[in-house]
């Protein structure tokens, strides 16, 4: 079995819980995406990684690793999911179309906060995930978290412009998968 020569590099990224997205502005990442996207390579890599207890998963325009069995406590995972819900809720409040391909800079958000009380309240609500007090610090911290998990990337260092990567739809997909029973849904005010 001849796995592609980029296997080590792919492993290094995915094993950290990061994603490889098709719309990254990093040439190397885009190249790696294309390597995995090749049907034959995907099969090979899938089998190869399965032997060392990782499952190579394909999302819409992104790849990631999962495990054949649970390794993390449910409680920790729930905490993480709650944090994501808060963060995405904040970002979608900033712009409904916040999703794969969206570009923004932290200053856009900070400017909006001055005129949008709802957004400000939601940012304040993120304090508990960041241990910071100042708006800018909170924002920087959550953006750093998203960046470290490769849901967004810093596209332009000079203008401080971020780009949302395809992996962001992983979070959206997760939110859509949660099922709210109809009778509960009816009780939620519009």
């Amino acid at each position: 079995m001849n796995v592609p020569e980029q296997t080590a590099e792919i492993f290094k990224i995915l094993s950290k819980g990061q994603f490889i997205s098709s719309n990254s502005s990093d040439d190397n990442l885009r190249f790696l995406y294309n390597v995995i996207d090749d049907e034959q390579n995907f099969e090979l890599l899938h089998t190869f990684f399965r032997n060392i207890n990782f499952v190579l998963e394909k999302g819409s325009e992104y790849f990631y690793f999962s495990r054949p069995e649970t390794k993390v406590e449910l409680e920790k995972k729930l905490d993480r999911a709650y944090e994501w819900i808060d963060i995405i809720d904040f970002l979608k409040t900033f712009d409904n179309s916040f999703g794969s391909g969206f570009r923004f800079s932290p200053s856009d958000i900070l400017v909006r906060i001055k005129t949008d009380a709802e957004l400000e309240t939601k940012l304040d609500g993120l304090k508990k995930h960041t241990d910071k007090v100042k708006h800018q610090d909170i924002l920087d911290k959550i953006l750093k978290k998203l960046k470290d998990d490769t849901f967004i990337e810093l596209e332009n260092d000079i203008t401080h412009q971020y780009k949302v990567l395809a992996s962001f739809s992983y979070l959206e997909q997760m939110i859509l998968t949660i099922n709210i029973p109809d009778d509960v849904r009816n009780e939620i005010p519009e």
Partner: protein
Amino acid sequence: MNTFSSIKELVSALYREEKLLSEMFKKRKTTDYKYDYALELVENNDSKIQYLLDRSVLRSNGNTLELDDLYLRFFEQILEANEEINISYINENLEKVTQNIDYYFNEQNEVRKYNYLKIIKHTLRKIGIITLRNVVDLKRNIDNTFKSEPNYKNKRAKLKHLDNKRKDIIELIEQTEHLVNEDDITFFKTATDEELNRIIVQLKLQLQKCTHNLIEIERQIIDFLNQIQQQSGVVEKLRQLKFLKDQFTLETVTDIKHVIARNNSVTFEPNPSYSIKLSLDHLQTDQEAFESIQKIAHRKKSRIVHKQPVADKISDEYLETQIEEEAQINLEEAKNSFLAGSRDLFDFVINYTFPKELSFDDRVTIYCQMVSEFEHLFEITGQYVEHEDISCALIYPNPTP
């Protein structure tokens, strides 16, 4: 109401106020174009604006001015900048064609017949152009709406509305094709006119192009609507989840636990750190590794010089040899002297000449030492002798040891 009496007058009037009209056309989206602004563009000449108002080129609305709808439409159509897709216009033209075909058949006079034919040809050509333009406008409007409409509900409603227009245009195209191919087949067969045939071929080509474009537009609208659906689906779901979360009921009423439990993504795991040890073999054999070790060793070398505490020089006094003399009392010799005499031990010890001067206490000590050491050589009697404040047993040499 005054009207323009000739094209010349119209064109020259439009040309004269070209600055004002083009400015107003640019600002047509913002309805309130102030009268004062307009005045500045016509060199503060009131009557010029009044002239345009009189001829219904402009309309005044309180303190604001706007282009008359007729001219606005005219400019938009000529410049291909119209945003409204007007289907009734095609419909009107279609009706015009059918009506004129009727007139054509009813008319006996060749000259008039020719006039009707001319109108039909003209209208058919117009239908082709208008339809094509409508399709182009439709496409541009759909793109604009999707990209620039900020309100989600409006965006979806507008796209649906545009989709209906698309359906209408398709229907009109079908009607036109039907008209040309089937309805008035007699007319198109009998009115043998070279130009008419050419126009019909041209029209058919245009309509075909429109149909192809419309198919693409349909695909795009569906795609856009799906994207919006997906986006607003996420936003809506997120809002509901957030509400439940704030009520602290998210875990109990939804299947979030189940969903998360099933999700074994590595992204939930803390960042792994692989602290893999260096290969000893590699360190010992590889030249590069050796260089690295040297480099690190060099870097690790501490700049701080540890000062060893140095002891002071030992004074010469300590090194000089000193002699201390101590006179030792030879008990053996004293014993032998004692045994040779006949005096009692205490008397002997008090009077014996030792190598050094001894005090009375010392002499008592020697007495005791001798008794304990040479007891078996002495005869200890039961008599005592008193001397100063001590009393001692009388001891004599033992004649038969």
